[in-house]
């Protein structure tokens, strides 16, 4: 097998011109890790300034540039591309396909990302500075009152959007057309299911974001007034459009994470996933609900009471399918034979912390209570519990879990466990006290704060430095594994792992499933 095929090309050309899903997946993963470090650096600057009351290191305007770029880089540069990378590596291997359906477009959707982010980062060096209006870029702060660099920001968002849409079309086409014979929809691994649904969300909402930034562009340069009351527009219209994209975006980030956890927990519980069908239905329900809850980000803009009630009830409903998922994962562990390798530790960390983030999400859904929580550090704590402990922890789990299959080498388990514990402790020291300062009245996005918030902010900063430093350990462990890790050759690296990707040789050859696999009884 494989004698008609050559291996990868050599030199830089291999990476520039590749149409191989594994190469492209690898590039996505490294790119997103680089962005994770960049966005993390911005976070460290934020936490260093907030270490003590008073302005010490940066000016308030620059502080706002840091919070804005931190959010944008983490959401669009780190988390989203990392899951696209994972999809590229895993979806063909999980459904028994030789590659993605549209390999040339796959190359293009990756390679427009680095220029996009280069353009975004270059705004830091422009006159007037980088965008300083928050990652949510509310008008008119982001239009009439923005620095000239906003135009570059708009163009960067367009490029990232195009990349995401192309990536999603590719995933949809692959999953729908390239499954191995016998792999019906309801036999697909849950990671494939969650990505299929995510891809539909992306195709639906990225154009809405593109519309929002185009309207900004028109307001700034062509004299329109979409978001200015003086010309018959409405600043709140911007928020409606933004969050119609923004809320599904939250699930775009978390659904693939659900998929990862649904693969890993059964493997280390040595027991099939509990309630596979209900997991699929719950994912679909969450995706549907994500389209009708957007204005819960806007309870204080002065909507009519009927609107507030609708969005409150719809938002509360999301707790039901999300709860089903958590219950299913825990029941999967119940009476299994558990072991706690690094991927499992990160999944358990995910389960605990994501559930806490879900609880605070439920609290935030209650409109009258949100009048007190809105735009405080309580919200900052909430979304970092779901974004970092949700998406980033599960992504980390995924890297540890599949790295031996990708590279044919085993990571250092002790170092992995140390990485988990430092991350877990550092994360909680950072973000748990933020619930307290938020409830006590500290607004978000401020460069300086009243003295009563000093102790918890210092604690938060220390935690952030610990969590930040633990990522260096992660990088070291991954590099050491790839270069000199202990070789593994078992097809099934983990004894409890299930799925087609564990039936191919380790390390995964450059081309896999050139002949569609026959699903055996266990998989069919």
């Amino acid at each position: 097998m494989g004698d008609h095929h050559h291996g990868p090309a050599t030199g830089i050309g291999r990476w520039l011109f590749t149409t191989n899903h594994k190469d492209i997946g690898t590039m996505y993963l490294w790119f997103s890790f680089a962005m994770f470090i960049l966005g993390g650096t911005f976070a460290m600057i934020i936490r260093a300034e907030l270490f003590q009351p008073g302005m010490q290191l940066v000016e308030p305007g620059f502080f706002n540039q840091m919070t804005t770029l931190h959010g944008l880089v983490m959401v669009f540069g780190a988390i989203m591309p990392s899951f696209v990378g994972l999809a590229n590596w895993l979806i063909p291997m999980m459904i028994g396909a030789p590659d993605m359906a549209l390999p040339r477009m796959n190359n293009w959707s990756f390679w427009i990302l680095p220029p996009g982010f280069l353009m975004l980062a270059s705004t830091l060096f422009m006159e007037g500075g980088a965008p300083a209006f928050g990652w949510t870029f509310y008008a008119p702060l982001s239009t009439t009152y923005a620095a000239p660099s906003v135009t570059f920001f708009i163009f960067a968002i367009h490029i990232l959007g195009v990349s995401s849409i192309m990536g999603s079309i590719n995933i949809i086409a692959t999953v729908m057309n390239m499954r191995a014979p016998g792999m019906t929809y309801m036999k697909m691994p849950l990671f494939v299911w969650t990505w299929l649904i995510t891809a539909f969300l992306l195709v639906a909402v990225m154009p809405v974001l593109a519309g929002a930034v185009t309207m900004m562009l028109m307001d700034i340069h062509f004299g329109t007034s979409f978001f200015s009351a003086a010309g018959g527009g409405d600043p709140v219209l911007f928020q409606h459009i933004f969050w119609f994209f923004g809320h599904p975006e939250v699930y775009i980030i978390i659904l693939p994470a659900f998929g990862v956890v649904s693969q890993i927990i059964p493997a280390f519980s040595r027991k099939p996933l509990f309630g596979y069908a209900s997991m699929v239905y719950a994912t679909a329900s969450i995706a549907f609900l994500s389209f009708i809850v957007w204005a819960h980000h806007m309870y204080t803009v002065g909507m009519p009471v009927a609107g507030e009630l609708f969005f409150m009830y719809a938002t509360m409903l999301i707790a039901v399918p999300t709860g089903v998922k958590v219950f299913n994962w825990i029941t999967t562990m119940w009476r299994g034979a558990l072991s706690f390798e690094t991927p499992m530790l990160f999944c358990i960390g995910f389960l605990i912390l994501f559930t806490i983030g879900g609880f605070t999400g439920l609290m935030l859904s209650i409109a009258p209570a949100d009048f007190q929580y809105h735009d405080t550090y309580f919200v900052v704590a909430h979304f970092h519990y779901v974004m970092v402990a949700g998406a980033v922890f599960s992504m980390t789990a995924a890297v540890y879990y599949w790295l031996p299959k990708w590279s044919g080498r085993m990571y250092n388990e002790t170092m992995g466990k140390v990485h988990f514990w430092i991350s877990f402790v550092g994360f909680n020291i950072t973000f748990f006290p933020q619930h307290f300062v938020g409830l006590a009245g500290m607004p978000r996005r401020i460069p300086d704060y009243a003295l009563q918030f000093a102790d918890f902010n210092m604690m938060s900063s220390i935690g952030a430095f610990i969590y930040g430093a633990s990522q260096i350990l992660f990088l070291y462990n991954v590099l050491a594994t790839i270069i000199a890790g202990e070789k593994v050759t078992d097809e099934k690296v983990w004894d409890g792992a299930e799925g087609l990707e564990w039936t191919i040789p380790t390390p995964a050859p450059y081309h896999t499933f050139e002949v569609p696999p026959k699903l055996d009884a266990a998989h069919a």
Partner: protein
Amino acid sequence: MVGGNVMRSALMALMALPAAAFGDNQVNMSPGVTTIGAEIYDLHMLIMIICVVIGIGVFGVMFYSIIYHRKSRGVVPSQFHESTKVEVAWTVVPFLILIGMAVPATSTLLEVYDNDDAELDILITGHQWKWKYEYLDESGENVSFFSNLATPQEAIYNTDQKGEHYLLEVDEPLVLPVDTKVRFLITANDVIHSWWVPEIAVKRDAIPGFINETWTKITEEGIYRGQCTELCGAYHGFMPVVVHAVSREEFNAWMGAKRADEAAQVAAAAMDLSLDELMSKGEAVYNAQCLACHGAQGEGGVGNAIAGSAIALGDIGTHLDVGIKGVAGTAMQAFGRQLNDVDMAAVITYQRNAFGNNTGDVIQPSDVASHKQG
């Protein structure tokens, strides 16, 4: 509400436990000084406790599994993986719990939205980066003023001690009578701001071109502090809200004094002042409004230098334009509606004669007024 009060005191006792561990740091929402605030607090505690109880159950099962169903104990994993009954149960039960939460939430929300029968109307306008308060009067005799951050730059930049109310203090607070339903009309002059005071549980966005409505009825006299909660530019963190809640008698006395003060200012605007008077008044205005950006010696900083500047030494009309209309696209605000004509005349005169700018120009309030007319 007796039940609510009992629950609240029980909860406060419970919260005292972590509070003891954290010293003086506030770790929870304040029930505040309004009935709405207390209801929101009860709602917050109710939902939080439901979540904590569910959390203990869920995590309890998980940790039981982690401890007793370990591979290292030699257990054999079961292979069960489906049960429609259980799935239905854990779909329906949470749904019922949610209905239990939605009922009190709905009733509180309807109260928050009941803006009728207010006894006092106040227009709140967010500016970059200060609040303007205007007490609306049916006869059209409105009283209005700006409320600026009172914390000195030296404290912010760590060259001086930080006071007890660092960043939460203003030159002129909003004064409200207690036991009076006050309606707030909230809007903004430039970008979106959000007016929030945690202890009276009012947070509403201030949106340029639109007016939002909300209300409060404070039950206890006191000073309540809050902040802008919507990112509004570089100095978003530096536009606090301070509310003085006083008795109705005190409020009426304060309002009387405020009106007399405004009348005096109108009279002053019609008179001509001497250079000395203008200079001393101008220095005070400069220190409050200009110093942060233009420096104590007019040397500049965030803003351009005033000492020896072409504007301060050049045409008076241009100088007035900059002061009144601001400079678009920069941090230089339009002070025309923030300063009255006397203060504007004084500060322009001061800038043209201080810091070695000795132009000898004297600008009178009437000059400012006629310049504004065009």
